[in-house]
């Protein structure tokens, strides 16, 4: 205990890198440690018995008197930041020129319990430098993270493009047979877990070869694209249309029974027949034959439900095209 208080008496406050100055109500300087001495070139001896404003006249300005007077009454601490108070505790010597001081004035009661004011003066120049350095490093690190994120994003985009290409028919942008097989397989799983059965519409364009032979392959492609677009815009949100191959399309109608499917299919047939397609100023009439089957939970498999729709379709072709046939 004695030891500590000895240290305190002799030089603790003189050894710390924080400036300490204590004044009484009349601004007589009561304490002035080494740090302030060094910064200001004013020694304790010089200032002892003098008033603080003899050396630093700013303390006589009303703006300081106003803000500081409360401290002697035990009021809250007052922050005097370097930005607004550059002039405080400065003597104009060179070593202070680039330094930044942060000053806090607070109420202080000495051993005799008379109230005085304590200034702690912190040199924050180095902290500021550290912060600048830190920010520089942080920004660098951030830009690395940014770069990595961008690379990851590109990878994800590339992957989704690949997936899109693998699942999509290039000409019509509809799902291809592969993707459709995946979707219908999932739907079969769902039906086996007792949801309502789905129906499948198998579609073949009537006399498609004529478009190619009369107007060229470009026209054939046009018809396929337009039909794809027509189908896509005509089905419900929950339905899936895809290109099965050649001029064949297939539609999956989840939770739709045969009767309902037939109504929808008949509408498709009528609507495309009524639609005018114009290719290079020539009016084209497109019709199609459609075969429908409904998945039977007890009997059907993936292959059988599609084959039944396909059979119905062929029956329709044989009966004269442009019609809807159901497989019961």
């Amino acid at each position: 205990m004695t030891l500590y208080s000895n240290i305190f008496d002799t030089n603790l406050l003189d050894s710390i890198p924080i400036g300490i100055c204590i004044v009484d109500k009349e601004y007589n300087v009561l304490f002035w440690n080494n740090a302030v001495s060094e910064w200001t070139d004013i020694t304790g001896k010089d200032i002892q018995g003098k008033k603080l404003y003899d050396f630093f006249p700013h303390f006589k300005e009303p703006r300081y008197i106003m803000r500081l007077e409360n401290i002697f009454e035990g009021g809250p601490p007052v922050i005097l930041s370097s930005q607004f108070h550059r002039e405080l505790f400065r003597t104009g010597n060179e070593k202070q020129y680039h330094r930044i001081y942060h000053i806090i004035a607070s109420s202080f009661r000495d051993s005799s319990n008379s109230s005085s004011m304590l200034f702690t003066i912190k040199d924050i120049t180095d902290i500021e430098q550290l912060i600048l350095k830190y920010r520089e490093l942080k920004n660098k690190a951030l830009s690395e993270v940014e770069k990595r994120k961008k690379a990851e994003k590109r990878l994800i985009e590339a992957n989704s493009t690949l997936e899109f290409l693998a699942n999509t028919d290039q000409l019509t942008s509809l799902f291809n047979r592969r993707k459709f097989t995946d979707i219908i397989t999932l739907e079969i799983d769902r039906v086996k877990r007792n949801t309502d059965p789905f129906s499948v519409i198998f579609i073949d364009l009537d006399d498609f070869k004529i478009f190619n032979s009369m107007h060229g392959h470009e026209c054939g492609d046009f018809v396929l694209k337009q039909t794809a677009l027509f189908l896509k815009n005509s089905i419900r949100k929950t339905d899936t249309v895809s290109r099965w191959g050649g001029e064949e399309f297939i539609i999956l109608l989840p939770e739709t029974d045969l009767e309902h499917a037939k109504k929808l299919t008949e509408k498709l047939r009528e609507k495309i027949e009524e639609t005018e397609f114009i290719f290079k100023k020539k009016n084209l009439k497109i019709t199609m034959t459609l075969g429908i089957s409904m998945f039977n939970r007890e009997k059907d498999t993936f292959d059988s439900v599609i084959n039944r729709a396909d059979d119905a379709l062929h029956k329709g072709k044989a009966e004269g095209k442009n019609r809807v046939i159901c497989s019961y």
Partner: protein
Amino acid sequence: MFDISPEKYDSLREILNIGVGKSADILNTMLGSHIALSVPELKIVEKLGTEMFPEVYSEYAVVNLPFRGDITGTAKMVFPSESALKMVKLLTNADSDEFDAIKIEVLSEIGNIVLNSVMGMFSNTLKTDLHYSLPWFQETDINNMVSVSDVKDTEYFLLARVSFKVEKLNIKGDIMILFKLGSFEKLDRLIDNLLT
């Protein structure tokens, strides 16, 4: 739970209103723009949550002034970070968009001026001596705005809050005083003294 009569609520509101009004004058002089103040709002709360803010920002700059005495708590000046930056930039002509030591210092001083004026008026009016810790700065979201030292020894706060707005500069913020639960009774008595 602490119960305070409507008359006392009213007087408390008035005291705060005068204190904050005075500090708004100071801010007004600093910024050269009119400061609009809301009516002080008093509430007993468990913690500061998003529901208490009409607009929620991701980050706030907060200057804290803890006080103790007959009544104990923390006074806070709270700015959405962007408002704080805008104001500091305006006052210092700084250009970067981050809080550096200088900006924090400046903001701390502004908060200090405002909070000292509010608390000064408050303790003078209620004729009670308060002891203050050093003001400190934090950058935080709403959920962490109440610090460990704020909630020490208390479950509930009496929250006094005034919002201010510098319409012309689109700067806004809040002045909040959190009184700890233990202070309620004393506060009640101090207001009693004042009213009689």
